[in-house]
């Protein structure tokens, strides 16, 4: 896509007149709502859009957002970051991971700290960049610290596929891929009457891969509407409008607003690749939420020769580490509190020195509130 087309795409989806148009439609529809409704945007990208474009400032008071757990960096528990840190500090290792991950502190420090102590830590934009690093450093062990939701999992699977097919001997994997629906389901079950989740805005890019089908359970079993939305402000305003309409019409349906990229089945080729290399773990700890059954993936046993968690087992710490005592991220993720309700928000806990999960990446709710101010 050339830059000109890109610009046209973005201008269209950020058109002030269209945004204002949806603002009016939502206002008219929201007048008919019998009570305040709580919409959870599951994905951190959506949290970012809401705050960056100031969308809450355009909405009536009876539409409330609960900012969900959908930022892969934020939910990574300290125990796993400590794994990455320990692996990075091993001699002869180059640790690769994706962008933001290197900023997040575990109990030993961040990967940036490891790097400043001499570890070779690099970020890659695409997992495929690992191939080049491995080729240029044949005597080093390249460990890819794989993170992300359904969106990035297929890229890790594709890299594993190439490593096996080309018989590359110096790339290994530490897998931390998590899955969205299990966390959504846990949050519904954990919510009480005052803080119930009335509707979900479904993630954009997760859904491109997995298809909208993974959310079918929410309207069917829990009668909660789901609208899969794009990331642009116009996308989100339209999705909010679709949700409010569902309420007023007494429906709870699975709808796709992000039709330009998402369908019901998703990318079945990517799904098959993921299924081939990965299986569910029994329990995975989400920072700020706790253990969620079957909410993450690991390499299947037959690929253990590539699994850094197996190979370096003796070097990795396994003690449980508690979240910071003053941190209320768990309540924020469940809709029981907003970032500014936290006693350490913006003081002891800032993006440069985060205490809790929601402050660690720009897609976390606290970081977005801190950065953009949530001005009214």
């Amino acid at each position, binding site marked *: 896509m050339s830059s000109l087309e*890109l610009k046209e795409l973005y201008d269209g989806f950020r058109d002030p007149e269209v945004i204002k148009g949806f603002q009016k439609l939502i206002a008219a529809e929201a007048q008919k709502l019998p009570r305040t409704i709580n919409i959870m945007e599951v994905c951190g990208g959506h949290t970012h859009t809401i705050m960056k474009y100031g969308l809450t400032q355009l909405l009536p008071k009876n539409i409330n957002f609960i900012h969900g757990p959908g930022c892969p960096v934020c939910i990574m528990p300290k125990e796993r970051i400590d794994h990455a840190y320990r692996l990075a500090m091993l001699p002869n290792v180059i640790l690769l991971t994706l962008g933001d991950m290197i900023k997040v502190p575990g109990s030993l420090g961040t990967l940036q700290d490891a790097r400043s*102590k001499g570890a070779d830590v690099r970020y890659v934009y695409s997992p495929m960049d690992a191939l080049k690093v491995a080729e240029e450093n044949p005597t080093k062990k390249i460990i890819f610290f794989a993170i992300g939701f359904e969106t990035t999992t297929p890229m890790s699977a594709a890299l594993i596929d190439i490593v096996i097919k080309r018989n590359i001997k110096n790339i290994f994997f530490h897998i931390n891929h998590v899955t969205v629906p299990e966390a959504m389901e846990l949050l519904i079950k954990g919510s009480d009457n005052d803080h119930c989740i009335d509707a979900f805005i479904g993630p954009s890019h997760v859904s491109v891969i997995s298809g909208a089908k993974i959310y079918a359970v929410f309207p069917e079993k829990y009668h909660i509407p789901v609208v899969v939305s794009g990331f642009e402000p116009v996308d989100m305003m339209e999705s909010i409008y679709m949700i409010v309409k569902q309420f007023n019409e007494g429906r709870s349906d699975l709808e796709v607003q992000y039709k330009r990229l998402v369908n019901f089945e998703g990318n079945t080729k990517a799904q098959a690749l993921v299924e081939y290399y990965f299986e569910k773990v029994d329990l995975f700890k989400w920072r700020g939420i706790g253990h969620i059954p079957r909410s993450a993936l690991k390499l299947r046993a037959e690929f253990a020769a590539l699994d850094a968690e197996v190979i370096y087992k003796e070097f990795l710490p396994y003690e449980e580490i508690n979240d910071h005592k003053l941190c209320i991220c768990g309540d924020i993720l469940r809709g029981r509190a907003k970032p500014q309700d936290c006693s350490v928000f913006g003081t002891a806990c800032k993006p440069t020195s985060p205490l809790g999960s929601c402050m660690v990446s720009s897609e976390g709710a606290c970081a977005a509130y801190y950065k953009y101010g949530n*001005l009214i």
Partner: protein
Amino acid sequence: MTKTVTLAQGNGGAENAQLISEIFYKQFKNEILEKSEDAAIIDGGRLAFTTDSFTVSPLFFDGGDIGKLSICGTCNDLAMMGAKPTYMTCAVIVEEGFSIKELETIVASMKKELEINGANIVCGDTKVVPKGAVDKIFINTTGVGVVQKSGISSNCVSTADTIIVSNEIGKHGATIFANREGMEFSSDLKSDCTSLWPLVEKLLAEGIEITAMRDATRGGVAAVLNEWAKQSKVCIEVQEEVLPVSDTVRGICEILGFEAYNLANEGTFILAVKSTDANRAVEILKTFEAGERAAVIANVTHQYDGRVILLSAWGSKRFMDLPTGELLPRIC
């Protein structure tokens, strides 16, 4: 602060400011240093004095090289204080094994840029270090300039001023990112690396009432505006849709999750001028290639003193925060 120095502390943003104030200012503290201007004003206001060290990867990038950068950077800091760049020093630390041909190219770029500024290198130093002791070549330049217009200061921005940006923003940062290993973009993007003295000279000659100027290098436009808002205790309200950003820079920002106003510039500066002079200043800037897309971008108010606010075209507002940490591409 962290126990060891991290790359994030060199980003021109919040961590960088903390490192400087808690380590360097703490010891070196004096009245001139504490003004935190682009260049120190010395000798009873007659001279401007500044220094800068240059390390860039890659050394040769679209639109310039480390040599051109090392002269532009220091001369621009002088120009931002209304001073004409005059005398300069050049200190080079070069790694054993570095190509003589490349060294010649770098020094030739320096000479060309010195001519544009009308400045001369009057003393220098060269050190060759063993392989691995530096990354190829580091250059430091120090500059002395003669102040042509006194009183320009980032501590004096007031509600009587209007804020202008001299050209499209984010081009240098986006170019360096696109030129880095591992980022395979094809684009016509070039760094904005350029000497700003000719533009400043013209503005002064035309009698524009300039309150403050600063080139938006590391940390970008957001860093400059935040510093001004804090130092002058005002609120700067930026109209988001008038910020000049090229389509290519915007495209790169969209893909990587960056904001153009956080990206470095090497030939783009921010001005606070008396509001009555704002339109005339923009017209003057536009007569230069390096000022083709000059625009008024912000007003100064007291709505949130010490903060910069971005106003969207649909009536919402948010903080334009100081960039934090290393610039890292988004994950998904």
